[in-house]
């Protein structure tokens, strides 16, 4: 591992080519939609390109030189992800399309065979649809019941209610680490510990946490933890599920096909070892290589300083937004990461998004795949500016100026 360079925002920004691009009108892109997907550093783009230029072959098959190199690149990416999450071993890491697929895998490979009537799955009110719908599906299949921990007006989980809802009936606790719609950081370590004490299996959706904080699955002591590559400066279509070894061993495969088998005859099939048992078909090799490069990138920068910079930006953005009387922030937890979600009185988020886009400002407007959160706050949608460490104060100033223009256009 190379020596970490001190955090220099100009150097960091120069690592992300898209931040230099201009619109046809000559405006520089202001990218504040990082919770939807993050931009990619040159090193990630180059790693994918180099993989296809020099090493492309199928993995775990064939003995030729390219297949060996591709297998080596793919498995070395697994090691990198294992180190990034502080997993005990790379065999704890299953490569998947992303967090959505990870939760679906868990629901079907663990939930479906192990749940029945009377059993409960506990989630929170601030989940992304991807941590709601797979559980509704498995509840319908098994007769288990879905329970939801409420949130308060700041977008903070009601921990007392959580404690009260835990019981020996709670078989699975699946919760988001950082909310994509609100930015709330949940006290996930404490919650995992409480859920495990009643015998529940614990799953953490880490899609929004990984780009903002170090993750240590052994310290969290969770059974499963899922990440999405594209939210953490890697490519789309690749993500990873960390799983406790004995659980992964005991679980059925998620999909069946090539790669996930050891031996096949028409009478009997022996499944491959963990984690390959869960990776049917030719995997997203280039994606894994890109994710490995993203992990390398995150480990090459002064991440602690990057986090400090992001906290400054979040506080600055909050203060600037609060100066606009029409703005109502949605999600005002003390513990927050990366997200400024808000409603602008007298306007609709969709109109705000279109007008900001005219200024080359990219924000997300909508329900952020978290409609229950919107229902909780009694609004159909929000405007969400979401940060990464490559953002600067000028990006937020541009947002504020853009919102003033929205006022001029929409409110006269």
């Amino acid at each position, binding site marked *: 591992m190379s020596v970490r360079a001190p955090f220099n925002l100009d150097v960091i920004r120069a690592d992300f080519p898209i931040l230099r691009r201009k*619109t*046809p*009108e000559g405006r520089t892109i202001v990218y504040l939609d990082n919770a939807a997907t993050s931009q990619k550093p040159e090193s990630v783009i180059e790693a994918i390109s180099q993989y296809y230029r020099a090493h492309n072959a199928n993995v775990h098959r064939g003995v030729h030189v390219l297949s060996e190199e591709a297998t080596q690149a793919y498995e070395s990416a697994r090691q990198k992800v294992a180190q990034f999450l502080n997993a005990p071993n790379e065999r704890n890491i299953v490569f998947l399309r992303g967090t959505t697929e990870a939760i679906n895998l868990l629901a079907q490979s663990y939930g479906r065979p192990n749940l029945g009537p009377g059993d409960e799955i506990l989630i929170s009110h601030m989940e992304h649809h991807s941590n709601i719908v797979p559980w509704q599906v498995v509840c319908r299949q098994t007769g288990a019941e879905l329970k939801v921990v409420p949130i308060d007006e700041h977008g903070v989980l009601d921990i007392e209610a959580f404690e009260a809802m835990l019981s020996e009936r709670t078989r699975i606790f699946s919760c988001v680490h950082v909310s994509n719609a609100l930015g709330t950081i949940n006290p996930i370590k404490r919650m995992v510990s409480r859920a495990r004490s009643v015998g529940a299996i614990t799953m953490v959706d880490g899609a929004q946490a990984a780009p903002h904080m170090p993750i240590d699955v052994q310290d969290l002591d969770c059974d499963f933890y899922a990440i999405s590559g594209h939210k953490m400066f890697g490519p789309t279509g690749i993500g990873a599920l960390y799983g406790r070894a004995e659980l992964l061993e005991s679980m059925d495969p998620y999909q069946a096909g090539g790669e996930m088998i050891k031996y096949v005859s028409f009478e009997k099939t022996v499944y491959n070892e963990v984690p390959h048992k869960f990776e049917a078909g030719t995997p997203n090799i280039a994606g894994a290589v890109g994710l490995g490069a993203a992990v390398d990138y995150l480990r090459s920068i002064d991440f602690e300083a990057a986090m400090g910079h992001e906290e400054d930006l979040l506080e600055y953005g909050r203060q600037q937004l609060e100066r606009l009387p029409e703005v109502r922030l949605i999600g005002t937890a003390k513990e927050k990461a990366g997200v400024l979600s808000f409603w602008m009185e007298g*306007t*609709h*988020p*969709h*109109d705000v998004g*279109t*007008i900001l886009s*005219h200024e080359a400002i990219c924000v997300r*407007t*909508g*329900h952020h795949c978290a*409609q229950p959160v*919107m229902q909780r706050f009694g609004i*159909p*949608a929000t405007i969400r500016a979401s940060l990464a460490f490559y953002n600067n104060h000028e990006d937020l100033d541009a947002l504020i100026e853009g919102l003033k223009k929205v006022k001029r*256009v*929409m409110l*006269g």
Partner: protein
Amino acid sequence: MNDLQDLYQSVILDHSRNPRNFRAIDGANAKAEGYNPLCGDQVTVYLTLEDHLITDASFQGVGCAICTASSSMMTQQVKRLSSEKALQLFELFHDLVTTAEEFDIDTLGKLAVFSGVRNYPMRVKCASLPWHTLKAALEQKEQPVTTE
């Protein structure tokens, strides 16, 4: 880039701030709900039909400026049209906000202010949602229609 004022014309802003026919019709004999899952726009269209003639039209719901203005102006335009004529107007309106380089201003009338929408592909559904809902009401569909 296109001028924002092509999209947010003053007529559209006026209708979005002060929507006309924004009410339920007691005893409406045709009604449908429309929903755009992309942005959460939701509109309910109420119609009074007498022998396939629309004698009253109204709407309620929450939506962006484009959706609200489109609903408001649609309810004005379809009043006193036969259901067949109203559906023909939907066809013309749909062309107006998607592809049409030229349009029949005599038939579309005030609705021509929505021509700027076609430069914003992500916003076409905002303008067309009330019309899809009107169509569902005329066809007496019970399931809410969506733009997806």
